[in-house]
């Protein structure tokens, strides 16, 4: 590909974001709109006997109050299992379940009306622990689920792990628990909707998945899919939390009963916390065995994930965890079992990393424990076992694509912050302990084999000689739109400003999957390249012919114009546009990511074939008087292929580290008996800028030959390294391991106290 430098430069959406001119889904106030809001059950498990809406309906300014009886379709949503009610009709399964929907003239009236709705219910026994939920006699969350509370179980076996442990010289065992992390995006769930004269329901919403949403909305509300249009403006953050239905069906249900008036819904922070999905909490049993020389020989894991009340993508997240539990190491004998259970807790769902941050935390701490038992340098141990291209991973699948894991580890081995760590540790001030920890990881890109990972892009030469690019994949803040425009500009030899980019709209008919799975730039970027190449050829051919040449090499494309090489004459692109048929001025590009269908037999939905890699180093200082952990230095080495744009690249790395440090040190959405205890940003603690260290981002630029400009996915890989790097650094500093994250001040102090007691 040419003109790689054209991909560099600031984000094209930077100015509109910092000046506040960008319009997010919450920024629309259509004429004569009604506010819509849901009444939440606030009880974790109950049979719903009655919903009393009379008092609310009698309130002046209330337009209507809807219950499940007003929903014409299946009243169910769900990507894999279609069982989550839009409005509860029989059973409440968690506190955030909606039981009624109010349409009101103002936000204040809406709020007052919601307070006036009451329900009659018969409490049902509850279950709040995933492992307990799988035992006989546990209260059942879904009576019709065949396996009790077991949503999905997945297992992998390679070699003979039982026998292999007997042949190991060192075996590390550990039980690790991770927290229920909340996305806490700046923009809470929001949108607006209306039904037009032709009966088309248009929903503008903050969503990562407009095309999949359209199907779900249509079936849940009983509207033909052709009568549903979903538009996804720029999102103010999502991180996986908007990969699916949030406000969409409620908005649609409201708009279908609003007499043609637009309706607007905007969850406040408490509702976003209550009803939004969370990272699945895990309990993970790890056992890793190695030979005396450090060679990993056997791995066995049992993983329990708490899905909460509904399936969502929890089973797929757990499966991804199973696929990544052995990280990027050569291990001949492996058994990994994953279980995902229903409980009456908040619904689990996608969150940057999709199950991998949990298992990586377990695996990388087990790796450090093996290193300790063998008295080996933990980074050398990782180097010794690191997968290379051509090796077979824990699923026994050969890695045929770019594999820069070893290079990532190599960068750290040579890094001064690693090499001089002992001197730094030894100079810890009074009451402080210093430690240096490693966390390595891999992360699959795109969808597994059974789910086609494909995209269609459309690029149009407008009559005025500028271009319009139709995106099929939402931009939730990661900057993919800007990258798409820069790719098109680079290929068409145009200034990036000449490319207008439209955010996804199902009317554009470019189903391209969700903005997720570290796939947005890889998959859609490839489709943009194809569209741009075809369009460029169309333009050059037209220009050549109109100038009397057959060979398109007789002309060249320049910003805003074409130059005829022989005569030196310039033709404005607006003139060329007038010469091309409307149909040919608009070109499509299609791409489907590589997939290996032979892996369908190995794992539910099949395996992935392309991975990104990373190796992290965290230097921490532990205050033994208060338990406070300061992350002092952080180095993230990443193999996400070639870097297209350093600014966007480093933003992904830094954002992931910030969120990863939050996951490691403080973020824990507490639920007691199914009710939220950290219901707002005053109690749910995320890191601030002063809680974060300077972050060093090093790119190991392997070339992924199938990727646009040699890149591969970056959005998720980085977050998985933070918790294990910090947990391992804590062990390095204090000689004791905290197996339950986050590593709060209280847990630190209590671990230090227990260590003292042992002495």
């Amino acid at each position, binding site marked *: 590909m040419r003109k790689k430098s054209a991909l560099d430069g600031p984000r094209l959406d930077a100015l509109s974001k910092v000046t506040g001119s960008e319009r997010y889904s919450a920024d629309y106030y259509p004429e004569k709109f009604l506010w819509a809001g849901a009444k939440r059950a606030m009880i974790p498990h109950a049979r719903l006997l009655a919903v009393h809406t009379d008092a609310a309906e009698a309130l002046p300014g209330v337009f209507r109050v809807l219950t499940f009886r007003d929903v014409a379709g299946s009243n169910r949503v769900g990507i894999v299992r279609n069982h989550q009610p839009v409005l509860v009709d029989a059973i409440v399964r968690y506190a955030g379940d909606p039981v009624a929907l109010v349409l009101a003239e103002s936000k204040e009236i809406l709020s007052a009306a919601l307070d006036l709705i009451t329900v009659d219910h018969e409490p049902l026994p509850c279950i709040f622990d995933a492992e307990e939920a799988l035992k006989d006699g546990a209260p059942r969350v879904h009576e019709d689920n065949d396996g009790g509370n077991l949503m999905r179980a997945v297992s992998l076996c390679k070699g003979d792990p039982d026998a292999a442990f007997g042949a190991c010289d060192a075996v590390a065992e550990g039980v690790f628990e991770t927290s229920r992390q909340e996305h806490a995006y700046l923009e809470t769930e929001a949108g607006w909707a209306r039904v037009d004269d032709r009966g088309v329901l248009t929903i503008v919403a903050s969503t990562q998945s407009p095309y999949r949403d359209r199907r779900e909305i249509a079936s849940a509300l009983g509207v033909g899919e052709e009568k549903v249009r979903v538009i996804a403006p720029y999102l103010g953050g999502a991180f996986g939390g908007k990969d699916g239905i949030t406000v969409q069906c409620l908005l649609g249900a409201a708009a279908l009963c609003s007499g043609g008036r637009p309706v607007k819904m905007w969850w406040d922070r408490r509702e976003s916390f209550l009803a939004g999905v969370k990272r699945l909490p895990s309990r993970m049993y790890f056992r890793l065995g190695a030979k005396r020389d450090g060679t990993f020989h056997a791995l066995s894991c049992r993983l329990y994930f708490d899905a909460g009340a509904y399936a969502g993508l929890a089973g797929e997240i757990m499966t991804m965890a199973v696929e990544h539990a052995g990280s990027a190491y050569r291990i001949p004998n492996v058994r990994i079992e994953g279980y995902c259970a229903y409980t009456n807790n908040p619904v689990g769902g996608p969150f940057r990393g999709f199950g991998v941050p949990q298992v990586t935390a377990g695996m990388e701490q087990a790796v450090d424990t093996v290193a300790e038992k063998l008295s080996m340098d933990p980074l050398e141990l990782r180097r010794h076992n690191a997968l290379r291209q051509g090796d077979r991973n824990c699923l026994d699948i050969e890695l045929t694509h770019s594999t820069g894991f070893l290079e990532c580890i190599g960068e750290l081995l040579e890094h001064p912050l690693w090499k001089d760590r002992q001197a730094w540790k030894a100079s810890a001030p009074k009451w402080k302990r210093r430690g240096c920890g490693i966390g390595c990881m891999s992360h699959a890109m795109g969808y597994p084999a059974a789910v086609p990972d494909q995209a269609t892009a459309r690029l149009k030469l407008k009559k005025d000689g500028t271009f319009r690019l139709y995106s099929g994949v939402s931009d939730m803040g990661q900057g993919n739109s800007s990258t798409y425009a820069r790719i098109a500009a680079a290929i068409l030899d145009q200034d990036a400003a000449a490319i207008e980019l439209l955010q996804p709209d199902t009317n554009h008919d470019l189903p391209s999957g969700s903005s997720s799975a570290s796939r947005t730039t890889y998959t859609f970027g490839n489709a943009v390249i194809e569209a741009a190449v075809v369009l460029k050829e169309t333009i050059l051919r037209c220009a050549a012919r109109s100038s009397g040449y057959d060979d398109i090499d007789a002309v060249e494309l320049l910003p805003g114009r074409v130059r005829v090489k022989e005569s030196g004459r310039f033709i404005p692109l607006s003139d060329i546009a007038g010469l091309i048929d409307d149909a040919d001025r608009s070109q499509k590009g299609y791409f489907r990511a590589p997939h290996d269908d032979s892996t369908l037999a190995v794992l539910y939905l099949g395996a992935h074939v392309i991975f990104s890699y990373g190796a992290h180093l965290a230097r921490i200082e532990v205050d033994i*008087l208060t338990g406070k952990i300061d992350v002092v230095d952080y180095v993230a080495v990443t193999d996400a292929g070639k870097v297209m744009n350093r600014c966007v690249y480093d933003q992904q790395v830094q954002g992931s580290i910030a969120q990863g440090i939050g996951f490691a040190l*403080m973020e824990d959405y507490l639920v007691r008996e199914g009710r939220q205890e950290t219901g707002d940003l005053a109690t749910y603690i995320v890191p601030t*800028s002063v809680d974060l260290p300077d972050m060093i981002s090093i790119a190991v630029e392997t070339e992924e030959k199938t990727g646009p400009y040699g890149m591969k996915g970056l959005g998720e890989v980085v977050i998985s390294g933070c918790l294990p790097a910090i947990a391992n650094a804590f062990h390095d500093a204090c000689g004791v391991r905290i197996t339950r994250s986050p590593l709060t001040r209280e847990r630190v102090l209590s671990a230090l106290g227990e260590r003292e007691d042992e002495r």
Partner: protein
Amino acid sequence: MGRVYLPATLETVFEILSREPSARLFAGGTDLLVRSSAVRRNEGSLVCLERVEGLSGISESDGAVRIGACTTHGELMAGGLITERFPILREAVRHIGAPAVRNMGTIGGNICTASPAGDSLPALYVLDAEVELHSAKGQRRMPLGRFISGPGLTALEPGEVLAAVWIDKDQGFNFHHFEKVGQRKAMAISVASMAFAAHLDGAGSVVRARCALGSVAPKVFTSQALDAFFAGKPLNEETLGAAAALVREGVSPISDVRASEEYRRTVAGNLLMRLEGARAAVR
């Protein structure tokens, strides 16, 4: 929802309060508006004191400094007088919220909220601050320690307004230390905090000390026995270990979503250990 008043004089404030005794006073609103966003509409009127004459600014008289109740934390930090005379107060205020919060929140608000976690309070206790209260009937002064009687409870009478804080200029301390423990480094509600000021002699022994701890009791924890215990002793591990034990016995923390009672009790004592080896500041 009630009305929001923006009076310019204390007289107008008194008038409003006599008409609407349930009206609530606020200045920066950093506590009130966050806490009551969900219930605010059901409450009465609000009276904003921000523009009331005579409630802002720092002034100096012969023996004391008067800090207007509506002086923001940001203004306190910027004021040279505070930095020079009461460095411990500046240090404590620096730990409140983040710059935007400090530019809105006021010292009067921090006092009247009377939260056990109020960040400025332990320092004000150590400095023996007094409050100046105004009402239609006149004005009165009382020590801060008497003004706050429990979580959210003050000696403010109906119709009364906190107008200012007074601190004696000459505190006679040559060492101070403030530390706050929260769940993160900024925008954090204190889980435990300690303000300590002392007059140390040339050898580092305590001539006189005052110690106050926040977030570990219904109100700021102080103890005359503790202050007296330090007298004549050097701040070494032995002294501080014994003082820490006194603190752990004396405090009565709660468990909540931020920290357990045990953690708060342990840390309250631990914070004293940070004083080890303290030396007088050279002026």
